[in-house]
């Protein structure tokens, strides 16, 4: 007998890693985005090193959002969402468990892949750790903010495009402070700690607000 939240976390993780799940899609997309940039920009090593962290962050952001609209849509399509909303377990906690599973399946592989892909972009070695660290701190916020958009997309019965439009503006602060913290390691002049602390604050804020907002959106979708 497991707790309801552990059960849903485990189920979503299993679904993501099975055939048809989205766990590897994000990493492959990330790889694709990052590898084509040097071809487009050309062999200017200094330029690549300067924009490298930003490219890594933009790639990770888009890769996170790629499969995020399915986080509730799949459950809404097969009726699972109905039963989840009826259950005793508070909906925000269910959403938090689903977002946690989503992050573990798609966000964490991005964090692991980022230092390796940094090589393509001539990111200096000392910044590799910073990229991974900022992604680890920032991608949970992306999953949680994305959950709100995914919930809205379900209740408004519109697909992924609407979600991207709704969610992208909300993720911009995460992107700005993630890149700022990483660039500060390479060129300065800001200290690393300041933007990184704000990034952590953004993640914690979305941990509190995201599930509640997503639950409200799902309940609003009841007709």
């Amino acid at each position, binding site marked *: 007998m497991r707790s309801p939240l*552990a059960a849903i976390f485990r*189920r979503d993780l*299993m*679904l993501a890693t099975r*055939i048809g799940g989205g766990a590897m899609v994000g990493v492959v997309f990330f790889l694709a985005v990052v590898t084509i940039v040097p071809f487009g920009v050309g062999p200017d090593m200094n330029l690549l090193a300067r924009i490298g962290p930003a490219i890594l962050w933009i790639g990770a952001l888009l890769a996170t959002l790629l499969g995020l609209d399915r986080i509730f849509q799949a459950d809404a399509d097969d009726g699972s969402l*109905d039963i989840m909303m*009826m259950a005793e377990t508070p909906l925000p906690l269910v959403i938090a468990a689903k977002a946690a599973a989503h992050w573990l399946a798609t966000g964490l592989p991005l964090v692991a892949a980022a230092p390796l892909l940094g090589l393509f972009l001539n990111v200096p070695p000392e910044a590799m750790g910073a990229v991974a660290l900022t992604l680890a701190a920032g991608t949970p916020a992306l999953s949680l903010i994305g959950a709100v958009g995914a919930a809205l997309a379900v209740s408004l019965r519109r697909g992924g495009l609407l979600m991207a439009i709704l969610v992208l503006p909300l993720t911009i602060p995460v992107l700005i402070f993630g890149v700022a913290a990483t660039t500060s390691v390479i060129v300065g002049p800001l200290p690393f700690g300041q933007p990184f602390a704000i990034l952590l604050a953004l993640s914690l804020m979305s941990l509190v607000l995201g599930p509640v907002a997503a639950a409200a959106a799902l309940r609003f979708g009841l007709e």
Partner: protein
Amino acid sequence: MLRLIADALTCQRGGRVVFSDLSFTVTAGEAVQVTGPNGAGKSSLLRLIAGLVRAESGHLALEGGDPEARLSEQCHYCGHQDAFKGSLTVAENLSFWTDFLGGGGIAAPDAMERLGIGHLADLPAGYLSAGQRRRLALARLLTVSRPVWLLDEPTAALDVASQGVLTGIMAEHVAAGGIILAATHGPLGLPVRDLSLARTVATAPVAA
């Protein structure tokens, strides 16, 4: 004594009144068959009781149930969709819902055996036939204990033998003091009270 009381329920969907001023009471040990032509609001009524559709007006209450729990927490809802993931096995699907909903019923393997899908436990649910999926959905009724069962077309896609099993399961639930509301066109095979939702809402007869 468990009593499900609906008082002057009105349901609107998409701006259209599906039914209005519907009142009825279901007491423990009773099975109610919700009947009516297509579009009369059978599914809407079940979803409304399950808390998945808002009532435009009226009141719903479950007397004698768990006072701490909302009505929807005390209901099983078996809709047209089976709520199973095709890439998980039959056993994984069932044990997930059992864990998520808190269990309290019989063990998952026993429930699958009862419904004749025990030999399919390790098969991904995506390969099941419509009738087998239905039986898997019904297995949830056994592994998780809830006093009120809301069944939308429970016999759809079931073969004759499985319909017999379902009848037995429902009879046991009713005998144990449970409540069943089933929306169906066919006979359920056990003594039921008829709750007819006529298409013209003004004349909807109300079973007391």
